[in-house]
């Protein structure tokens, strides 16, 4: 049973995006695409978020902010990089104030293609991120169980 897969909470941050992907992320939450069918809710609080949606490329001003949001999110967490800019910098890759894709700052789990990414693609990305969350949670449980077992064995030996 994985409640995290059924109800992942999202947080969205616009690193230097052109707005196109941002409004498509918003469009995902409105009736026609309705990401809330998958149990998603957009939250403004990184402490409550499971999936981090990043649009746009990273520059030296917003890289600490992206990193900060990521660090505040509780484990397990997944990062979805939306659009060509978040992947490689897109058409802005050669601009002086763009340092590249999101992967240069935080580990990315899923890429969503497109410029601007279509809402359907974003939904795909979110659904995939929810699956990754479930796998990560499983792995976390397994390690925790192993640790507990180890501790128990240690105690028995003593």
């Amino acid at each position, binding site marked *: 049973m994985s409640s995290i897969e059924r109800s992942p909470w999202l947080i969205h941050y616009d690193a230097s995006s052109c707005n196109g992907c941002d409004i498509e992320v918003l469009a995902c939450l409105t009736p026609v695409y309705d990401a809330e069918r998958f149990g998603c809710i957009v939250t403004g609080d990184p402490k409550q978020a499971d999936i981090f949606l990043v649009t746009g490329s990273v520059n030296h001003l917003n890289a600490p902010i992206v990193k900060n949001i990521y660090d505040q999110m509780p484990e397990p967490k997944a990062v979805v990089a939306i659009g060509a800019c978040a992947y*490689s910098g897109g058409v802005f*890759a050669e601009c002086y104030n763009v340092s590249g894709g999101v992967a240069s700052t935080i580990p990315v789990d899923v890429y969503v293609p497109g410029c601007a990414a279509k809402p359907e693609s974003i939904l795909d990305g979110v659904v995939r991120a929810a699956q990754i969350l479930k796998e990560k949670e499983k792995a976390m449980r397994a390690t925790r169980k192993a640790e507990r077992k180890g501790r128990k064995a240690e105690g028995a030996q003593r």
Partner: protein
Amino acid sequence: MTEQHNGSIIPIEIGALLPETDALRSAGWRLVQVLCVGSADGAELSYSFGLDLEMRSLRVTVPAETPLPSVTAIYPGAFLYENEIRDLFGVRIERIAGDWEGKVYDVAMGKLFSKVSIKAISSEDPGAATGGAASMGGAL
């Protein structure tokens, strides 16, 4: 149509900038934009003004390191343009009302748009000019 879009461009001296701007303001013109084009030995600023659909620009050529008076005393809305130009071109604009002390964009490199530094940037980055797999190398 082109004429209407471009308006007239009037070259003036640095000293004439404030009196000319003041005269336009009294005649009911409003500031449309301030434009800067950098060159190796300074910059060229165009102050565009609009009255209804007409546009008129005053053009000032500023040698490097020459101070330029701010027009914010006449048009308070100009502070954004002037801060931006000072950050990106390194033009010394003095006494801006609403001075951000060079923190508009907070870009890593200074004076980006002056021609000297563009050459420096593009020579640092030879991959960009040849095109091809610049992004592929980064992302793959």
